[in-house]
C-alpha cells in the first residue's frame, strides 16, 4: 500500500482531531487551525486525485483496523468520492473565509472556538459520509453531521435562530429515525453492514424473487429519510428559517454542503447497496421525480414572493434540490451525471449567493428587506459582482456553471426512453423563467442608482477594497470556481462519468 492511499483516513482524522484540539484553543488560534486543516485536507485530496487519475486505478477499498472484509470497517475511495470530497473542502474554506467578518460581529468572541469545533466536526463527518463503505458508520456520521449543523444554526444566540435550530433538529431526527430503521431492516435481510456484501446478498434475494415487499418498504423509508434530511420539496418547511437567520457562513455551509452530503449518501445507497436497477424497478424514482418537479416550481414561486433577500436565496435552494432529485428521478445514467454535476454547481453558486448577499445587506444598514438594498451594488462593488455572477449562474446563462447543468438535465431528458421527457423539459423551462424573474429583479434593484443625499440620510456607507481585502479575495475565488465549472466542464463531467462507472 502506498502512502497516498491513506489520504482519506488522514483527512477524516485530521479534521476530527483539530475539532478536539480547538476546544482548548482561543478563538483566533482555533480559526488559524481550521484554515490550515482545511487547506491540508484540500491539498491531500488533490494529491489523491492526481494519484487516482495518473495510476489508472479507478477505486480501492481501505481497511480500517486489522479485520478483513465481512467483519471490519472499510473506507472506499474512487474518483467520484475524491472529486466530491475535494469540492466539499474547497467550498467549506471559501464559505468560512467569506463569512468571517460577519461571524466576528454576530457571535461573542468567547464562542468563536466553539464555532470552529463544529465546522471541523462537520467537515470530518461529511468526508466520512463520502468515503465510508459501511452503512452503520454512515448512520453514525449522519447524526454527527446533524448535531454539528444544528450547532452552526444556534451559535447566533437569538430567539429566531434557536427556534430554527429546534425545527431543523425535529425534521432531521424524523429523517434519521427512518434511516436507522431502514439500515436495521437491511441488516436483518442480508446479515451484512458493508456495502459490497449487502449488494451481493440483495442480488441473491432479488434473483430468487423473495422478500419483494420488505425490499420495497426498505427502499421507501430510506429514500424518504434522506429526502427529509436534504430538504426535498414537501419536507422543506425548516429551510428558510435555518438558512435565512443563521450567521452567513452557517447558511452557506448548510445549503451547499450539509444537504449535499445526504444526497451523496443517497446516491451511494442507490448504486452501491441496493443496485440502481432494482431502485429503477421499484418505481420509487418516479416519486422522487414528481417531488423534484414540484420542488422546482414551488421553491422558485415562493422565492418570488419573498421580501427578505436571505430567505429568497433559501427558497431558491429548495428549487435547486428539486433539480437534483429530478435528475436522479429520470433513472438514466445521463440523469444521474447531471444531478451529480448540479450538486457541485449548486454548492459553488449558492454559497457565493449567501456570501455576497451579506455584503449587500451590510452596506444597507444591516436590513435584509428588499427595498433597502436598492443601489447597494454601488456601495459594495465586490458583493455586487459576486451576486451578479451567482444569479446569472442560477438562471442558466452560458459561460457560468448553471448553464452547463441545465444543459445536461435537458440532454438527459431528451434521451430518457419513457413519459418523463415532456414534463422535464416543460418544468425546466418554467423553473428557468421563474428563476430569471426573481434573480434579475434583485440584480436590477441592487444596480439601481440611489441619490447621494438619500444614502447619507439613511446613514449607509460604502465598502471599498482596502477595508475588506479578505472578502474581495473570497468573492474572486468563488467567481473563479464558478467559471471553472462553467467553462471547463468537460473534464469534470468526464471524471464524474468515469467515477460513476467505478461506483456501481
Amino acid at each position, binding site marked *: 500500500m502506498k502512502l497516498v492511499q491513506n489520504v482519506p483516513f488522514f483527512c477524516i482524522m485530521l479534521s476530527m482531531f483539530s475539532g478536539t484540539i480547538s476546544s482548548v484553543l482561543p478563538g483566533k488560534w482555533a480559526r488559524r487551525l481550521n484554515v490550515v486543516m482545511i487547506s491540508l485536507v484540500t491539498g491531500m485530496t488533490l494529491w489523491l486525485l492526481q494519484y487516482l487519475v495518473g495510476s489508472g486505478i479507478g477505486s480501492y477499498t481501505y481497511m480500517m483496523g486489522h479485520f478483513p472484509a465481512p467483519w471490519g470497517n472499510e473506507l472506499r475511495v474512487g474518483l467520484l468520492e475524491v472529486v466530491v470530497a475535494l469540492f466539499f473542502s474547497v467550498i467549506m474554506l471559501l464559505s468560512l473565509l467569506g463569512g468571517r467578518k460577519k461571524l466576528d460581529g454576530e457571535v461573542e468572541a468567547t464562542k468563536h472556538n466553539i464555532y470552529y469545533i463544529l465546522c471541523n466536526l462537520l467537515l470530518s463527518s461529511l468526508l466520512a459520509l463520502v468515503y465510508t463503505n459501511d452503512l452503520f458508520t454512515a448512520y*453514525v456520521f449522519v447524526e454527527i453531521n446533524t448535531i454539528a449543523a*444544528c450547532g452552526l444554526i444556534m451559535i447566533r444566540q437569538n*430567539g429566531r435562530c434557536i427556534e430554527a435550530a429546534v425545527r431543523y433538529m425535529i425534521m432531521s431526527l*424524523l429523517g434519521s*429515525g427512518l434511516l436507522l*430503521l431502514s439500515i*436495521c431492516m437491511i*441488516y436483518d435481510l442480508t446479515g451484512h453492514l458493508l456495502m459490497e456484501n449487502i449488494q451481493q446478498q440483495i442480488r441473491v434475494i432479488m434473483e430468487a424473487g423473495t422478500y419483494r415487499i420488505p425490499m420495497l418498504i426498505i427502499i421507501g423509508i430510506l429514500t424518504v429519510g434522506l429526502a427529509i434530511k436534504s430538504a426535498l420539496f414537501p419536507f422543506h418547511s425548516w429551510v428558510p428559517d435555518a438558512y435565512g437567520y443563521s450567521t452567513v457562513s452557517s447558511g452557506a455551509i448548510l445549503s451547499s454542503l450539509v444537504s449535499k452530503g445526504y444526497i451523496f449518501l443517497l446516491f451511494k445507497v442507490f448504486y452501491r447497496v441496493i443496485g440502481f436497477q432494482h431502485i429503477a424497478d421499484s418505481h420509487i424514482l418516479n416519486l422522487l421525480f414528481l417531488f423534484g418537479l414540484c420542488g422546482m416550481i414551488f421553491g422558485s414561486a415562493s422565492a418570488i414572493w419573498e421580501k427578505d433577500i436571505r430567505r429568497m436565496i433559501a427558497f431558491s435552494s429548495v428549487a435547486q434540490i428539486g433539480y437534483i432529485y429530478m435528475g436522479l428521478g429520470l433513472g438514466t445514467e445521463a440523469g444521474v451525471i447531471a444531478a451529480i454535476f448540479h450538486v457541485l454547481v449548486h454548492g459553488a453558486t449558492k454559497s457565493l449567493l449567501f456570501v455576497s448577499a451579506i455584503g449587500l445587506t451590510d452596506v444597507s444598514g444591516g436590513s435584509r428587506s428588499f427595498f433597502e438594498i436598492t443601489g447597494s451594488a454601488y456601495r459594495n462593488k465586490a458583493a455586487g459582482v459576486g451576486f451578479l455572477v451567482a444569479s446569472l449562474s442560477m438562471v442558466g446563462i452560458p459561460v457560468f456553471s448553471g448553464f452547463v447543468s441545465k444543459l445536461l438535465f435537458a440532454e438527459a431528458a431528451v434521451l430518457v426512453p419513457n413519459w418523463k421527457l415532456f414534463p422535464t423539459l416543460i418544468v425546466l423551462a418554467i423553473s428557468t423563467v421563474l428563476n430569471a424573474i426573481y434573480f434579475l429583479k434583485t440584480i436590477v434593484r441592487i444596480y439601481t442608482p440611489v441619490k447621494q443625499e438619500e444614502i447619507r440620510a439613511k446613514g449607509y456607507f460604502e465598502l471599498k477594497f482596502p477595508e475588506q481585502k479578505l472578502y474581495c479575495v473570497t468573492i474572486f475565488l468563488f467567481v473563479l470556481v464558478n467559471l471553472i465549472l462553467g467553462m471547463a466542464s468537460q473534464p469534470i463531467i468526464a471524471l464524474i462519468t468515469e467515477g460513476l462507472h467505478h461506483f456501481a
Partner: protein
Amino acid sequence: MGGNLLVNYGEAVAMILFGIGFANLLFQKNLIKKIIGFNIMDTAIYLFLAEKGYIAGRMPPIVVNGIQDVEAYINPIPSGLVLTGIVVSVSVSALMLSLTIRLYKRYHTLDLDEISIRLRKEGL
C-alpha cells in the same frame, strides 16, 4: 401473514412503538413531549434490533465457561449496534433538551407554535 405476525410479535410491537414515537415527534406541540416521542422512536428500533439478534435458547455472547462454540451464543452484532445507537440518541436528546431550556427561558412556554407566533410578532 397473520401467523407470521404472531410468531414475530416482538418486531410487530417494535414497529407499532416506532409509529407512536414518530407521530409524537412530528405532531406534538409541546417540546418535551416531542423529545419523549423521539426517545420512544429510537428505543423501538433498539427493540427491533435486539429481537433480530436473539436466537432462542442461546446464551449472551460472553465466554465464561470456556465454551467457544459459535452455536452456543446469540448474534452479538445487533447488541453492538444498539450500544452505538444509544450513545447517539443520548447525545441528541441532550442537545434537544438544552435547546428547549433556552427557548423556555426566553419565552416561558414549551409550545413550539406559540413561540413561532411570538417570533413573528416581534418581527425579528
